[in-house]
């Protein structure tokens, strides 16, 4: 009898399992000492029986730590951790070791499914998709979901590690109160050119666009696709607000785009990394993480110059959010807290190569990441860069119409 079977066999419907699991954790935590599942459940069962026998109203929560101090204002304080966590994420966006360490620390089973665009995420949520505890929308989708009331206000007391997030990334244009998200990672839109062919040295987005008609005849040029990229980026190049709904400004962007249309060979965001790495694109836009890969792929030839635009450009952020309908909110908060742990964040950054705005973690990243402006984009740039948002359906429709005109021109 030295080895006891850790699996406890209880004759009960399978649906009651999460409840029993919760009971076990609750008893364990309040008991403090080490005990087996059998002992914990036995104790818990006795306590419940006693409570039922007395007929009194006993509170089952709040036995353990001092987390319940703010009880009345926060509905989650002192609630036990759920046994499941359902994540809806972009694929391959987190280091496998992150999941492992979270599971061992919190005894939570993780289930993850994937989407490939914010549109897909929004469509799923709007079609009544529930059951997700964690979603990872980009900035424009966060704004939309906040407007729709689909997000849960985060309980910062349950995410103590979030205090490490740089202050400029807490209250953002798309979440002015900073209550609905914790930034997962961020990036910028920039451009690159083949320095053996393009002899001018463009430094701003406007100069990039102005070179397109000349070099579109020489080789392949590329813009990022989608109405939400093409139109706001053109607005920014013209020095206008990317999120404007002003029809005169939108007309200006439309005319500007049509004037450079013959210089654009492709409009594509999914295949350009491979094509540019093979040296097929001579002038193109790209996201910094991708451009970093292109530059390293062309290191031998040394013919790609990457440019962080001087004046302004797009900055984007993917965010940890909890849907209002999340069935396991405590586990979801614990997940976000885990991801804000600097040691976890370092591993994450080494995995996905996008910066997480936590200085303590950035300091620990390897020098080749930390000192690379294409990874750790200096704040002197990002401070002037703007988020592209979806302020209203009318603006989104207007952008789509301009994009259609641009494509079909």
């Amino acid at each position: 009898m030295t080895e006891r079977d850790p699996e406890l066999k209880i004759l009960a419907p399978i649906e009651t399992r999460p409840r029993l699991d919760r009971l076990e954790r609750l008893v364990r935590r309040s008991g403090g000492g080490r005990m087996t599942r059998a002992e914990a459940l036995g104790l818990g069962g006795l306590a419940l029986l006693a409570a039922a026998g007395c007929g009194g109203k006993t509170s089952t929560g709040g036995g353990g730590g001092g987390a319940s101090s703010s009880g009345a204002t926060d509905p989650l304080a002192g609630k036990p951790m759920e046994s499941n966590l359902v994540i809806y994420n972009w694929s391959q966006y987190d280091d496998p070791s992150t999941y492992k360490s979270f599971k061992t620390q919190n005894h939570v089973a993780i289930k993850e499914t994937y989407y490939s665009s914010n549109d897909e995420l929004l469509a799923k949520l709007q079609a009544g998709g529930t059951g997700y505890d964690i979603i990872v929308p980009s900035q424009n989708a966060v704004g939309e979901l906040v407007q729709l009331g689909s997000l849960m206000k985060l309980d910062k007391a349950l995410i103590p590690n979030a205090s490490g997030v740089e202050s400029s990334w807490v209250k953002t244009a798309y979440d002015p109160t900073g209550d609905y998200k914790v930034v997962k990672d961020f990036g910028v839109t920039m451009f690159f050119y083949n320095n053996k062919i393009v002899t001018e040295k463009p430094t701003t987005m406007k100069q990039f666009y102005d070179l397109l008609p000349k070099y579109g005849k020489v080789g392949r040029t590329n813009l990022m696709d989608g109405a939400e990229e093409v139109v706001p980026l053109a607005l920014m190049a013209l020095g206008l607000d990317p999120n404007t709904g002003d029809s005169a400004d939108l007309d200006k962007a439309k005319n500007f785009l049509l004037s450079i249309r013959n210089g654009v060979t492709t409009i594509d965001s999914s295949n350009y990394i491979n094509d540019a790495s093979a040296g097929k694109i001579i002038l193109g836009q790209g996201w910094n993480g991708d451009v970093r890969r292109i530059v390293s792929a062309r290191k031998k030839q040394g013919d790609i110059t990457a440019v962080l635009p001087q004046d302004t450009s797009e900055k984007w952020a993917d965010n940890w959010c909890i849907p209002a309908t999340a069935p396991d909110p405590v586990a979801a908060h614990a997940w976000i807290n885990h991801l804000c742990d600097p040691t976890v964040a370092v591993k994450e950054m080494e995995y996905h190569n996008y910066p997480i705005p936590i200085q303590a973690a950035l300091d620990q990243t390897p020098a080749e990441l930390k000192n690379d402006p294409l990874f750790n984009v200096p704040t002197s740039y990002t401070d002037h860069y703007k988020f592209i948002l979806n302020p209203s359906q009318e603006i989104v429709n207007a952008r789509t119409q301009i994009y259609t005109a641009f494509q079909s021109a």
Partner: protein
Amino acid sequence: MATETIQPPKRSPRRRSFAPRYPGWLTAPSLIYYMIFFLGPLAILVVFSVATQAGFGSVSYTFSTSQFQALNDPLYIKVFRQTMLMAAGGTALTIAIGYPVAYWMSRYLTRYKTLALLLVIVPFWTSFLIRTYALKIILDPQGYLAHFVEWTGISNQFNVLYTGKAVAIGLAYNYLPLLILPVYASLERMDWKLVEAATDLGASPFKAFRQITLPLTLPGLITGALLVFIPMCGEYVIPQLLGGGQFAFVGTVIGSNFLGAQNWPFGSAMAIAFMVLLSIFVVIYIAFATREEQFGA
């Protein structure tokens, strides 16, 4: 033998064959499937197309023709026209390649006819997406075909990928079997003795083709042409991959309205309007298909 008395019961099965009496309810599973999964989505599309938008991704169910009025814009008329022109170009290319192949298979192949037919269909067994990506490699300006063309001196700049030419090639390639098969069928049913008679009477081979073969296979040709033209109009992937995203097909615009803008009513209205437009071609198709039935057999 009482042969005379047996005759009447013998006649009754013949009469029955004119009015088959199989139980009609046996078609119910198919009809239910058809109604739920074909007519159902179509009905939803119609409901969306007369609805209006109410904020992000939500729809208020009204009866409004505003979406169709918004379609009456030079921009969308241009998109419709461009799509149909590209599809017409693709169809012309498909006929130029497919008709000779079908003719050759039907007229000159005897032993390997079935094998040739199989080879025509074989590409259909591979994923459409993979075939289109493969075409991208072939058309690459730094690929083998480009090197070959430059080596032969036909052209020193092989610049096809991400142009309208690449889209037309992709369309023709992907829909070729759909044209070859009906043309081949009508050629198979044709009586070649008519062509022999024409040449015996002094017609040149070309004249015999123009006056005999072409008119007799025209219904099959038109059937095949429409069979490729209609799906080409709704193409979404080929213009994106081979045209580099710079060709706005109707399918592309519907996609960006449904997904990018979450404007379901407008996307639905566009789909319905285009469906009505294509129905005109379907009517032509049905007319020719029935004519071919009368002819062929």
